[in-house]
């Protein structure tokens, strides 16, 4: 199977997963959520890090490892204003961004979003998939992404990732990124094309 076809299958799988996750998200926050068409990248690690945005911009991020089933990770990156907006919509009140409560609420949000995404994939693959607790970070985007991508580069120093943007109200955007390891991609494709 050539790379383009592999990418298409991966993109479609991701699309179904994120579609379901967005429905769940919509139920929690009560406003329409739009998603952009997913994109698959298989590019050198240094380009991958610089692709995701300004390196020194302060963002909130959750990093979720899949500990059983497939070998992959999920990274959610959002601006501070979209994080505030989500928490406000969930609780119907303002919460201080520096408080633990804010982090806990947002962590729960990341948990729900990722669980719905992974549940769909798990059903499609007929596989039991277990997630780790989301790890939280609020720091420079470059600092977050380089740690994650350095964990996932292959022998040729390239990273494979599928990404989409979730759009809430006007232009508030959040990136949802799936970073599968090479062996797990082959496993997924075998499972689906069987």
């Amino acid at each position: 199977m050539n790379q383009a076809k592999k990418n298409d299958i991966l993109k479609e799988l991701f699309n179904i997963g994120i579609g379901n996750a967005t429905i769940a998200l919509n139920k929690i926050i009560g406003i329409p959520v739009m998603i952009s068409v997913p994109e698959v990248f298989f590019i050198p690690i240094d380009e991958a890090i610089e692709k995701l945005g300004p390196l020194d911009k302060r963002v909130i991020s959750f990093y979720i490892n899949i500990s059983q089933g497939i070998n992959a990770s999920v990274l959610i990156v959002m601006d501070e204003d979209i994080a505030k907006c989500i928490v406000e919509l969930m609780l119907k009140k303002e919460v201080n961004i520096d408080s633990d409560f804010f982090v806990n609420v947002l962590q729960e949000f990341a948990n729900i979003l990722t669980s719905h995404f992974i549940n769909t994939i798990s059903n499609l693959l007929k596989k039991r998939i277990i997630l780790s607790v989301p790890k939280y970070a609020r720091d420079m985007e470059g600092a977050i992404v380089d740690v994650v991508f350095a964990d996932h580069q292959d022998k040729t120093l390239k990273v494979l990732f599928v990404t989409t943007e979730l759009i809430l109200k006007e232009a508030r955007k959040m990136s949802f990124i799936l970073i599968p390891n090479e062996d797990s991609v082959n496993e997924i494709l075998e499972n689906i094309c069987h």
Partner: protein
Amino acid sequence: MSLKQYIYVGIGKAEWSKAPDVLICKGLGSCVAVCLYDEVKKIGCIIHILLPNGEDTDKPYLFANSGIKTALKEGVKKGMNRDRVWAKIVGGACVFSGIENNTIGMRNITEVKRWLNFFKIPIISEDVGGNYGRNVTFYLENGKVEVFSFKKGVILL
């Protein structure tokens, strides 16, 4: 007198320049910025290292081992004296809690120190490790390194 230039150093790259220029590295997480400086000639560089070890002839500056070696060679060509050069190192953090042990950041720091030691370059100051990202600004006028982080503000090295 020449005009001051601000030079941005990308991931896996290295830039050499001379006073009064300023070298800048943004969003260092597990990456390590190695600042090399020759005080007499007032020339210096930042190497933005991403990974501890490896081989890639097209992008030598991605790795600690080949990065430091290539940068020193390049520096000698630019007129730097190897015996006078010192290093300041910044970075090697892990922003996510819970995965601090044996992270890429820690391995980067160890390898950078090992290779600087191998080439007999003294490390005169450092700001490494921790769980926060950093921006580095390297003033070639006086060899001062300014480190910015959201957690600790500005630190001068």
